């Protein structure tokens, strides 16, 4: 499907400036136990402290699927 050049250019710029979280899991503070405003990345636990790298091949990610 053809996508407009302007949208594709914006994707390229967005990737370059790093406007993607390392994980797509953004917390809505209304319905989670995390403090408001925290973006829960894979490397943080629920208290906002760094997680321990468990050394497995699949550490540091919280995929939407693939939990199987």
């Amino acid at each position, binding site marked *: *499907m*053809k*996508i*407009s050049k302007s*949208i*594709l250019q*914006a*994707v*390229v*710029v*967005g*990737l370059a400036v*790093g*406007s*993607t*979280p*390392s*994980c*797509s*899991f*953004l*917390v*809505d503070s*209304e*319905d*989670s*136990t995390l403090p408001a405003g925290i973006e*829960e990345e894979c490397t943080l636990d*629920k208290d906002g402290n760094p997680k321990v790298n*468990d050394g*497995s*091949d*699949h550490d*540091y*990610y*919280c*995929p*939407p*699927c*693939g*939990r*199987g």
Partner: protein
Amino acid sequence: MNKPASIFAGIALNLEKPNVEAALPLLQSGEVEAIEWSFDTLFQLDQIPIWFRDLLLSFAEADRLIGHGVFFSLFLGKYQREQDQWLRKLNRLVEALPLAHVTEHFGFMTGQDFHKGAPLSIPMNPTTLSIGQDRLQRIQQACGLPVGLENLAFAYHVDDVKRQAAFLSQLLEPVNGFLILDLHNIYCQLHNFDLSIDDILAAYDLERVREIHISGGSWASGVINGATQIRRDTHDSQVPDTVLGFLEKVIPLCINLRYVILEQLGASLHMPGAQAAYQQDFRRMQAIVKRFDSTSKGDDDFTPPKAVPLGPPLEAPTLYSEQLLLSDILESSPNLLAARQALATSSLAQTDWQVEKWDDEMLATAIELAQKWN
């Protein structure tokens, strides 16, 4: 003039840099025909970068954006506040970003809060059937769209594998729903339970399939027998040739198929080589789809039936307490033996959960899943 394609070759795309990077050449060339987005991993639309929102919108406006929920936990025995919020957010989402359909997963999620956990199977009985149908009706009324369910890779024992297929059809009947047939999930089952693809496919109502998933996975050594290889649905490697072979086999049988989606996690797409392999997987998948896309003869769009008033959400307190107990046992057991003992002496023993029949390697897998994703 070419006949318009009736089956769209697409990708699962989420806001993960490596995922978007890997997909970019395919998007730039116009090869991607549909996007599946796991909308509940990023619920607040105003927090999505505008470029990602606009990309999704361009597919939505062409009726090529499909939604794939992850965290609703369809079979949780107690209706949660978070589920109600999930439905309200879905209702708002579809107004801003039109989806062609919405899907979720078979199973219930372990985990201490709404965003953690791994999907596990459930006893398939009238109680869980009622709960699942109730929740699917609520999802459908929240979005007003065709709704579907994806088959689960994980099963506790071989009987579950075939029973899941029939149960899915029963679940979907009241909402005129459809199936996502995940071929890698089936690949896992045929390896883990020594079944043939024909055995498994024969159990499914393939005319209910509107969407197919393909992906890669990984092998894990068995806990009981280290030489045994357990196939895991981890979405972190190239699609096996066997799974592509399954795709060729099933497409002609799925007369209402509309989307074939490649899934791979962003975390496994950091390296340029992996991204090139992902693009190759897509093109191989697309070549198969193109070979068959004129053979899709069905015209069932799985249109929602007329909405009926829904009373309070159905709940099953005993099921819920059993789910909590099972989650706790899986999350806290230091090893397989401890889990077996805990299950045998718990209220789960001698129930529809049939814990006594659970395959040791599958129980070990469930322990690992529950502890990893908690």
